[in-house]
């Protein structure tokens, strides 16, 4: 085998191993904690003020979109700090892979906001839960197990909420539609993210490292 063929073969092996082994955690534990606490706070506040007769957009969609912007910003900052610590570029191959996998479903959630944001917050909440679950599951083949479990939880919750709608009647019968929507969001985006943060929070370990700092 010539040295050039050997070099090409080695580069092929390296590329294939790297693609197989790349693991990218798209949601950091502190980011999930902030998101979870924020979601519960908005849900409680929304349910508390659900009797007010302002528009659905103001009562439901805008607070949640605001929280999305804040938590996405915090999560990006945390991921950037972690990439810097490892000496990796911020737009690492893992991040590009994650964005490519997750973006279609996240855009689906955006389209649902345009379709239901002004009139049917309960449907919007169910669709956001479902689309978010699908986006996390789309990253399952290179994400750690915890992200897969989070994706499954959101997908099952979104699926059941939507599938049960015809059997329990329309959501407004249960109560104010904005309050129902806030309840769905708080129970899923709030609680699920808190559980995820607790399960993945970095723990102090008794460790001894030799051979230099990793």
């Amino acid at each position, binding site marked *: 085998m010539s*040295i*050039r063929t050997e*070099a*090409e073969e*080695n*580069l092929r*092996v*390296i590329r294939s*191993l*790297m693609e*197989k*082994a*790349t*693991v990218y955690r798209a949601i950091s534990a502190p980011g999930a904690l902030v998101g979870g606490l924020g979601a519960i706070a908005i849900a409680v506040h929304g349910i508390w003020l659900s009797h007010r007769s302002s528009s659905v957009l103001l009562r439901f969609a805008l607070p949640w979109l605001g929280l999305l912007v804040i938590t996405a910003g915090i999560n990006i900052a945390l991921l950037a700090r972690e990439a810097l610590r*490892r*000496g990796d570029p911020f737009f690492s191959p893992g991040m590009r892979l994650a964005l490519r996998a997750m973006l279609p479903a996240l855009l689906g959630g955006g389209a649902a906001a345009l379709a239901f944001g002004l009139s049917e917050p309960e449907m919007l909440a169910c669709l956001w839960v479902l689309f978010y679950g699908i986006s996390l599951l789309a990253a399952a083949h290179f994400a750690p197990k915890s992200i897969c479990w989070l994706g499954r939880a959101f997908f099952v919750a979104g699926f059941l909420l939507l599938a049960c709608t015809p059997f329990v009647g329309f959501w407004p019968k249960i109560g104010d539609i904005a309050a129902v929507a806030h309840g769905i969001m708080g129970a899923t985006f709030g609680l699920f993210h808190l559980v995820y943060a607790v399960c993945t929070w970095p*723990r102090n*370990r*008794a*460790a*001894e*490292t*030799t*051979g*230099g*700092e*990793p």
Partner: protein
Amino acid sequence: MFDFEKLDKTIHEKGRLGIMTLLATRPSWPFQDLKAELKMSDGNLVTHLRTLHDAGLVAVTREVLDRPQTSYALTAKGRTAFREYLAVLEQIVNAGKPRR
């Protein structure tokens, strides 16, 4: 003419190249995961890891969480050596390409 002496012989061996590649993808790898991914025997993997550790390319962390676990990570020297090795491979491949 390309200087083949530039190739890091410690990394160039197939088994060790696989280990270095995997270690470059994550902050650290437990021994059992490395073994499963590379499909190597315990003895073979331990020998290669010891060679890389002795060369200062790999750091070993022994920790106790639920049970004792040994994990491996690239050192700063190891990361640099791996990047340089990749650059040399690319040079070799590019050197053989016909010029336009």
